[in-house]
């Protein structure tokens, strides 16, 4: 899925350091978009500027945003993981199964996270061990993981999660600040440091820019990719815990279509789908934008499927704008 004729939107050496030129960066464009939508929301609905409604807003993106953080790293290395939503479905199903055998809350959480990790490792093995293209592998595991959930559950659902378990998806850490939001912010900081401030992060960029060159300079390309797939699986497991706790039930169709929303967040956040470029700050703002758009349109009673027109157009317009601008400048020069 590479295209030599299209270049990344920015130079990779600048991308290691997203705060370097704050003014003319992708992130500032995203902040402007976010502010515009925020203002539009506050004018459009009198119910928007209210601590509780702003807090509800965060539930629109925290689970997907968490996965987007890990997915950003995978995409920066030039791979992709389309199975994340199915990992959620499988992890959630097995948590429900554990519940039937009387598992308590800590066990449920452990099951969810462990299933995510195992699924991620399976993807990672197929991609790095057998050297298969990740887009096809994860289309396959996407059907496989959700298929297993369907085999286990059929058209049933698991209900009756313990009260303490519900806290993960519905609990508040401080007044209106939900546990999900805090977890997302903490994870964002961890991923920021990991990608932009460590050698590991530098290697991730190196792989995305030129995997062969990275290999020759001593980067263990396959091991890093494997770790990243495990990480994405693990985070999807955590997201499964959050989502299951929030909904209070498990169906095999849980989180359907999440994978495309997650990829949309990552790409909107300025991560090049070709690999080698991107920043965590961009992804966080993009997640916020998606949350703002869906919540704002929800306040205006716009049906869910029409919202997708806005998110899809946003994705294309935000990415096309700088390109059109550059073409316009080149034509005038």
């Amino acid at each position, binding site marked *: 899925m590479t295209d030599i004729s299209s270049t990344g939107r920015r130079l990779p050496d600048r991308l290691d350091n997203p705060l370097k030129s704050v003014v003319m960066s992708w992130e500032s464009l995203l902040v402007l978009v976010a502010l515009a939508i925020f203002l539009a929301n506050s004018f459009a609905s009198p119910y928007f500027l209210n601590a509780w409604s702003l807090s509800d807003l965060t539930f629109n993106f925290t689970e997907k945003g968490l996965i987007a953080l890990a997915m950003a790293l995978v995409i920066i290395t030039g791979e992709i993981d389309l199975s994340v939503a199915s990992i959620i479905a499988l992890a959630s199903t097995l948590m429900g199964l554990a519940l039937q055998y009387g598992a308590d809350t800590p066990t449920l959480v452990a099951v969810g996270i462990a299933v995510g990790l195992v699924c991620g490792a399976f993807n990672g093995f197929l991609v790095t061990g057998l050297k298969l293209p990740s887009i096809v592998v994860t289309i396959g595991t996407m059907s496989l993981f959700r298929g297993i959930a369907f085999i286990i559950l059929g058209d049933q659902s698991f209900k009756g999660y313990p009260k303490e378990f519900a806290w993960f998806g519905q609990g508040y850490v401080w007044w209106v600040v939900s546990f999900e939001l805090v977890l997302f912010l903490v994870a964002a900081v961890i991923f920021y440091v990991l990608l932009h401030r460590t050698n590991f992060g530098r290697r991730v960029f190196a792989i995305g820019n030129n995997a062969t060159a990275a290999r020759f300079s001593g980067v263990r390309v396959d091991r890093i990719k494997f770790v990243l797939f495990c990480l994405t699986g693990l985070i999807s497991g955590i997201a499964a815990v959050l989502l299951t706790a929030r909904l209070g039930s498990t169906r095999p169709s849980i989180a359907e279509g999440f994978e495309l929303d997650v990829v949309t967040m990552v790409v909107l956040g300025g991560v090049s789908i070709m690999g080698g470029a991107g920043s965590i700050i961009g992804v966080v703002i993009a997640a916020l934008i998606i949350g703002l758009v869906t919540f704002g349109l929800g306040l205006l009673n716009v049906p869910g499927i029409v919202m997708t027109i806005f*998110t899809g157009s946003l994705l294309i317009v935000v990415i096309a704008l700088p390109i059109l601008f550059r073409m316009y400048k080149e034509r005038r020069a």
Partner: protein
Amino acid sequence: MNRLLKSRETWLALAILAVLVLVTIRFPRFTQPGNLLTIFNDTSILMMLALGQMAVILTRSIDLSVASNLALTGMLVALTNAAFPFIPVPLLIAGCLVVGAALGAFNGILVWKLNIPPIVVTLGTLTIYRGLAFVASGGTWVNASQMSTDFIQLQRGVFLGLPVLSWFAIVVAVLVYILMTRTPWGRAFYAIGVNPVAAVYTGINVGRTKFLAFVLSGALSGLAGYLYVSKYVIASTESAGGYELTVVAACVIGGVSIAGGIGTVGGAILGALFLGVVNNALPVIGVSPFWQMAISGMAILLAVVLNATSERSKGRIILKKAEVAA
């Protein structure tokens, strides 16, 4: 003979035969000609979509918007038919081809002129087109009672023992085969996939060729839109939901390389047929339909593993083959 044994299509055909034989051992009626024709007919729409997708994948792109294109075009044609039942169906089909091609052209323009990666463009249009289907219908369904008899019955008509729907698939397959193996366009698709830089030096316009692949994929999705709606006699926003990845899966199983440049019309058809046969066989042998997803997932993974091993040993010689054929 040697080449025949090594070819992907032979093995896939054998795999399909094996499934058929295994099922027939227990349920002899499964392979009665009538049922085989039904399976072929059921798979026709997937086949057409897979052929369009193959053209796109050959050029190192991907079209994730096919199912949404199908839903939108299908909705538009059903609404048109409901509102103006006197418009002849062939005219409606032509309209579907044009609308579908226009939606594909929108993808193609963004890829060609703005150089946005195809996966990003079609991820966006995937949501846009399906959303537009909702807007067009106002969220309602168009059901059988609103559709005209011609609209519903056209594809059910039988011509030379085959339903018209199957003939649509056959005609599309023949046309795409001719396009791929007998025209400069076909060679351009392969050339770009094998080596885009070399393709530029041979005078191929890479962007325009990709654009054409998207237009082809869009036009076939549009046609599939009419066929889908009239086959299931309902047009809803959810038509063919999530189908885009099944289409990609059919291509992958059929040996189309996701890295571009490798793939044949026969392979894409057999890939779609394989999914069709498996899906039809599961309920017959008493496997619950809930297994279907897991089994197609396994089939995809198995196909990729086989693909990867055969590609490594053979290298990309498909262009040579195309040259020999031409």
